[in-house]
């Protein structure tokens, strides 16, 4: 399908990966378009969604049923069939909370190499705040014939050993500041975040994911993103980046920003994130505001 020609979207490095709410409204009903809503809140879709959009839940549908991992190729193909998505379709994903979970679903589609996946800028919130329509009608999935394709973890997914050997290279901790400093595991009476120790991976800088989104939940313009990720950090777009958070969900938002909006060639999401690193035996951890040194 055609790409969004609006000025804002053309300003990004890969305008083919993002569409505006206008574009979506204009293309509703297109035979090749598959709209997918993916939210943090599993009930939100059922309260109303964009016409023809199908629901995709990260927690219950994209995860491996047993291991801490994503679907196997066969399972992903089955999921796509039940959702009525073909390999050639243009998949446009949107969701609540600044597209946090939408970018996560996008990342999983890219693990399986689905070529034409796009995010709707501003997500569900912007669509609603612009007064556009929602429906509670559930579309009937058209039969599809999605092929079984290998999952490629090499290019956009980081594992712990790679993180450990990359200390000192651009590493972005996208959690909130109290999580980064380690303060959060010390609150009395409250259950912790599923990690044994608090703090961050040495040398990681803290850029909370949501700073890349404006108040209307759309992505910031390119120039402001460059300030945030390059000028403020002295990182360069030619560097190799890794982003992480707690389970890899918020960091997929930052991964999307770096790769598709800013054009960083090599950027990976470390989905093990703090719930893995904060439980690993023997790895270095830094507490407090400073990134710390690579040991």
């Amino acid at each position: 399908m055609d790409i969004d020609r609006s000025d804002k979207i053309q300003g990004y490095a890969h305008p083919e990966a993002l569409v505006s709410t206008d574009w979506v409204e204009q293309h509703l009903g297109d035979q090749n378009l598959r709209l997918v809503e993916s939210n943090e809140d599993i009930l939100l879709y059922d309260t109303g969604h964009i016409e023809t959009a199908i629901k995709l839940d990260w927690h219950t549908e994209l995860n491996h049923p047993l291991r801490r991992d994503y679907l196997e190729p066969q399972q992903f193909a089955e999921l796509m069939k039940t959702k009525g998505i073909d390999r050639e379709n243009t998949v446009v994903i949107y969701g609540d909370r600044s597209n946090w979970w939408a970018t996560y679903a996008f990342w999983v589609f890219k693990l399986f190499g689905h070529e034409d996946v796009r995010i709707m800028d501003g997500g569900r919130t912007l669509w609603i705040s612009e007064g556009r329509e929602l429906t509670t009608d559930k579309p009937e999935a058209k039969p599809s014939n999605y092929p079984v394709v290998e999952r490629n973890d090499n290019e956009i997914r980081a594992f712990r050993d790679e993180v450990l050997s990359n200390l000192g290279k651009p590493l972005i901790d996208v959690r909130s500041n109290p999580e980064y400093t380690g303060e959060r595991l010390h609150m009395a009476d409250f259950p912790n975040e599923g990690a044994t120790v608090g703090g961050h991976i040495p040398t990681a800088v803290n850029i909370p994911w949501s700073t890349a989104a404006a108040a209307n939940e759309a992505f910031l313009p390119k120039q402001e993103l460059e300030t945030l990720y390059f000028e403020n950090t002295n990182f360069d777009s030619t560097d190799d980046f890794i982003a992480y958070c707690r389970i890899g969900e918020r960091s997929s938002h930052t991964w999307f920003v770096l790769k598709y909006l800013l054009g960083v060639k090599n950027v990976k999401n470390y989905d093990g994130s703090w719930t893995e690193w904060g439980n690993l035996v023997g790895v270095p951890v830094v507490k407090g505001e400073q990134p710390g040194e690579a040991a």
Partner: protein
Amino acid sequence: MSSQEVVDNFTLLPESERLNMLLEYSEALPEPPTEHAGFDFERVEECQSPVYLAVEIENQEVSLYFDAPREAPTTRGFASVLHSALDGSKIEDVLNFDENFPDKLGIAHLISPLRMRGIRGMIARIKRLTRELSD
């Protein structure tokens, strides 16, 4: 409504309808009364969406107040389920409330264990606030 009745409302339904039941609960959550605007609401950090909880005790009876946005129906649904099960209960019934209540609703695998942390966090906080107020 007793907590057993709440459990029955879910488990007597086929699985495919249980999330709809949670949505109905979310729509039925009473708004916090305005005279309680100055109330000491505590944020439930275990929920990824903002939800605030307040506990009041009068004549040994526990009243619960929740404040959660409509954009977070799952969180509102959990709050409403607990409101139905516990509002108006005796102090000791709240303190002894079954910690496994969330599992008994038969929805954990439908919405993922991670999302169940929110309702557990609410129960832990309801108990702690009740204990603090009744000491």
